[in-house]
Structure formats: C-alpha cells, structure tokens
C-alpha cells in the first residue's frame, strides 16, 4: 500500500530551481511514486493537487513556507525523505557557506557600493518590484524572470530610458557585458561585433557561430522577447543600438528578433539608417526588403547573420549563406546513405528543441520544402497540436514553452521532458529526429549525456522493427564553455547522430533527407 506523507517548514525559503531539481531526486528513491518539494506558491499547491499529494495543511501554506510531500509505499518514512531533502539542500549550499549573503538589494549595495548590474530571477510576481528598486538605485538590470505583466515591462523600460540605464528583460535569457556571460550565455571570445537580441537562444546561436568563425563580440545586450511588440515599442533595442553606435569597440552591429510589430520594425530600422557602422538584421523570417530599404543587411538564418557580421568586419564580400560547410558532394553522400536505410512507411519529422528560437527557425526554414509542421508554437494557428504531448505527422516542439515548464525547470537546465517524450513515443512513420544541444553557463552540465540513453533507445526500438531512425543535431557551444564541446560532439557521433555545425545546417540536411523520401 502507498499513502501521502508530508512535512511543512514555516518561513523557510529556497529558490525554485533548486527545489525542482531536488523533487526529481526524491522521486528516484525506492518506493516513492510521486514527489513535490517546493514553496507554498499557488502554482506548487496546484501541482500537488494535480499529483493527488495535497491536503488541507498544504492548501493553507504561504509562498514563504516550504513543504515536502510524497506518495510512497508504507515502508518509506517521511523522516527518511526529509533527511534526504536536507542532504540535497546542504550539498547545494555547501560551497557558499562562508559567503556573506545580505537579505535585500539595499543591504547588498551597502556592502558592495560599486555594484553596477543586478541580475534578477525571482518569481515573476515579485520581479518587477525588485527591478524598479534596482533602477531607482541607478543600477543596470538584467531581468531573467518571466510572468511579468507587459504594463510593468513598459513602466520599467520607460524608467530605465529616463535614467539612461539598461533594462534587459523581463524574460531576458542571455547577455554578455564586458565579456562576462550573464544567465544563459556561452563563453565567446572578445571582439568587435555588438549584438542586441530579443530572442535568447537565437542570440546564443549567433554569438557561438561568430566565435567558431574566429571573431568575437564587444557587447551582447538582451531585451527580452516582447521588446519589439507594439506595447513596448522597442525601447530597449533602441537604447542598445544607441549604446553600440557610441561604443568604440563595436565595429559591426547585429540585431536579432522574431518578426516585430510593423511600426516598431520601422522605428528600429530608422534608428540604424545612415549608421556609420554596418548593421546586420535578422528578424527571423521577417520582411527582408524592409530591412534593406534602411541600408541594413538582411539574413536567411541565424548562422547567416553571424557570417555576414564576420564578413563585414573583415571587409569581405557579403552574400547569403544557404548551404553547408561541407562540400555539396559530401552532403549528397550523407543524404543517400541515410535515405537508403528507411523503409517505405517512414516519412515524418520530429524536431525536439530546448531552444525556442531555434525551433522557430527550424519551422521557418523547413515549411516551404517539406510542408506544414504541427507544433506547440506553430507558424500558423491551424497547425497548433491539439494535445502538445502527442506528436502528429511532421511535428516540431519547443520544450521551453509554458506548457512544458509549469513547475519545472527550463529544458536547457533539465531536459527531462524531452527525454521522456523520446522514451515514450513509438511512431513508426517517423524518419528524422532533429535536436539542439545548448551548452554554456546556465545550461545543464551535460546536455548531451542526459539525452544519449533516450536517443540510443529510440534508435534501437526502430531497428528492432526493421526500421531506421535518422538523428540530426547541432551543438550551440564554444570550445571555452564549461561543458566539453568536442566531447559532446564525439559522443553524439558515436551514438550515430549526424552533428552539423549550426542549427540552420542541421535543419537543411533534415529537409534534404525528408524531401528525398517524399
């Protein structure tokens, strides 16, 4: 028999990602069927309810109370669970025990009066207040938290503009200021390309390819995904452009965003018209003619944006890059080799992404060649999956979207949702599996290692049925990232994954293979 066991600790606070990762560890204990370790927020209480491990004591908790609740076999004692939670918590804390950690922003500032950037990642409902406090103390802000209202975002950005400060975010995943990677960012060499990016993994992909091509970045300013919406009007992108124009280290400027609201696109492009520094703009899948009208270079992919910026910096000819790093004959050989292994019923794509912009780019590059793609973030509403947990025909999933991240860490921190999907699905008509692996600070310590068992199992499952699963991937990472880039690539290749040098090239190769078996 199993039953619900729980423990509550009033007024004890831990951050959400730490607790989410601990929940996962607790669930692995023998005899434990469900587990939730969290603060008493509305979201966590709802999750406990959905897992059927809640009760009145838990329902009455405040967000400042900590709880552990499990559904476990009768021989599992709550004391054992509790001890394990403490062990995991103290492991996470140990390295920082001797560090002074003040309780508020004001006290931190008293202790370190020279501080200049505040990185905020508390729950969305508290985030705007902290950001406002920071701006009022004349500090630049990177706001990683999401679930901040668009009204609050507007107010924060207007305040930042009045004060001439950076207000990166909300929902800003990546920035590199003075060569320091903040939140999710790769270790990219120092150089002369300045970037303002409204999409996190899109920006990471561009910086990584710049590094691979032998150049580097001066500054990478994130704006958060909504900056170019009509309600915000590109306030932070405009601030960023102005700063990069005036920065002597920046010789080429790159702007990255999903297609902006039309009037905002014009406003942003006007700000770069007649810029003495060349400007490359990737409004992923947006209107290229409009960009060119204002004298900027438009792009066909994130990789193309990086290549154009590097060409401009070096004074080389600028042209669209729509091909492959490998010679065409090599690519043809790969395509023929893969196509020969499928059986006649195999025809579909599964594109499983941890990076949202990379997923979006994949659909934009592929839909004209292979046809419509179902998704949780579809290009047109009619291709929204009825149930995002069930794939259908060609499917592309962004595992970082809200439906997959409620109460769970982002898949770049913990790719468990993608692992489980791959383990569970058994669609014999699938031919190609397309994936991203994002390295860098902030990301999982070994994103490739976490996925490999599931990839191997999926391949074996198909092989047992006399079929073949082709897996194509790309690694968004540099030689200097904390994860080992070469070792990541080597292990993928050893498992039979075709590793391409960029997302765009991985997507293109998948397209060629799928088209050949149509």
């Amino acid at each position, binding site marked *: 028999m199993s039953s619900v066991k729980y423990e509550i600790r009033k007024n004890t606070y831990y951050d959400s990602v730490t607790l989410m990762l601990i929940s996962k560890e607790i669930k692995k204990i023998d005899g434990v069927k469900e587990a939730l370790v969290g603060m008493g927020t509305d979201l966590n209480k709802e999750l406990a309810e959905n897992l059927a491990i809640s009760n009145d004591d838990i329902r009455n908790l405040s967000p400042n109370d900590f709880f552990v609740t499990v559904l476990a076999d009768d021989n599992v004692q709550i004391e054992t669970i509790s001890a394990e939670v403490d062990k995991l918590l103290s492991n996470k804390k140990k390295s920082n025990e001797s560090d002074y950690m*003040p309780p508020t922003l004001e006290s931190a500032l008293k202790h370190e009066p020279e*501080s200049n950037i*505040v990185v905020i990642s508390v729950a969305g409902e508290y985030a705007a207040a902290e950001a406002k406090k920071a701006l009022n103390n004349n500090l630049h802000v990177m706001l990683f938290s999401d679930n901040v209202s668009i009204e609050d975002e507007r107010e924060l950005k207007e305040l930042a503009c009045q004060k001439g400060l950076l207000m990166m975010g909300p929902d800003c995943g990546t920035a590199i200021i003075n060569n320091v990677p903040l939140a999710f960012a790769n270790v990219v060499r120092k150089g002369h390309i300045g970037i303002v990016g409204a999409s996190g993994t899109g920006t990471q992909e561009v910086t990584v390819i710049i590094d691979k091509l032998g150049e580097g970045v001066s500054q990478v300013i994130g704006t958060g995904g909504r900056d170019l919406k009509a309600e915000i009007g590109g306030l932070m992108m405009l601030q960023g452009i102005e700063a990069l124009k005036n920065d002597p280290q920046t010789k080429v400027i790159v702007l990255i965003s999903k297609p902006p609201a039309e009037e905002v696109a014009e406003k942003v492009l006007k700000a770069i018209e007649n810029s003495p520094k060349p400007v490359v703009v990737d409004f992923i899948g947006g209107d290229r003619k409009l960009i060119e009208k204002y004298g900027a270079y438009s792009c066909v992919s994130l990789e193309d944006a990086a290549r154009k910026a590097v060409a401009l910096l070096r004074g080389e000819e600028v042209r669209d890059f729509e091909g492959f790093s490998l010679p065409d004959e090599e690519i043809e050989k790969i395509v023929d080799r893969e196509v020969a292994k499928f059986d006649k019923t195999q025809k579909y794509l599964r594109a499983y992404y941890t990076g949202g912009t990379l997923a979006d780019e994949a659909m934009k590059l592929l839909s004209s060649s292979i046809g419509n793609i179902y998704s949780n973030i579809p290009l047109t509403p009619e291709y929204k999956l009825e149930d995002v947990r069930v794939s259908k025909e060609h499917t592309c999933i962004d595992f970082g979207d809200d439906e997959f991240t409620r109460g769970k860490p982002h898949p770049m921190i913990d790719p468990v949702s993608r692992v489980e999907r791959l383990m569970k699905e058994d669609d014999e008509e699938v031919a190609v599996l397309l994936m991203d692996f994002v390295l860098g600070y902030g990301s999982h310590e070994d994103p490739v290692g976490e996925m490999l068992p599931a990839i191997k199992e999926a391949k074996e499952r198909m092989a047992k049925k006399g079929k073949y699963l082709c897996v194509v991937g790309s690694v968004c990472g540099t030689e200097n990232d904390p994860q080992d880039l070469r070792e990541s690539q080597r292990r993928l290749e050893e498992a039979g994954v075709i590793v391409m040098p960029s997302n765009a090239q991985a997507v293109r190769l998948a397209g060629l293979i799928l088209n050949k078996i149509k």
Partner: protein
Amino acid sequence: MSKINELFNKEVKVINIGLESFYNDLKKQKVSVIHVNWRPVAGGNKRMASLLSKLK
C-alpha cells in the same frame, strides 16, 4: 557619455537576486558578485507587501 557606455568601460560587478546557480557561475569565473538571500516581502502576503511598499 551615457551610463550604458560608462558601464562598458567598467569592471562588471553583479548583485544576484534569485537563482543561486547564476551566482555560482559568476563566482567560478571570478566575476565580482554578491548574492542576495532573498525572500518574498511580508512572507508573500501581497496586501501586507503593498502596505509596506507605501511606507518606504
């Protein structure tokens, strides 16, 4: 010079509020960083938090 351009010429010094992993990442890179041992104002009681913010 704007404050943003001034920042580009300074050593980055971070105050981290929220995920401790961001603090650890910066510390590993020897970036100057201080972590705020943050908790919700007024124990997460929104009405109380709003009253407190008006007092300041």
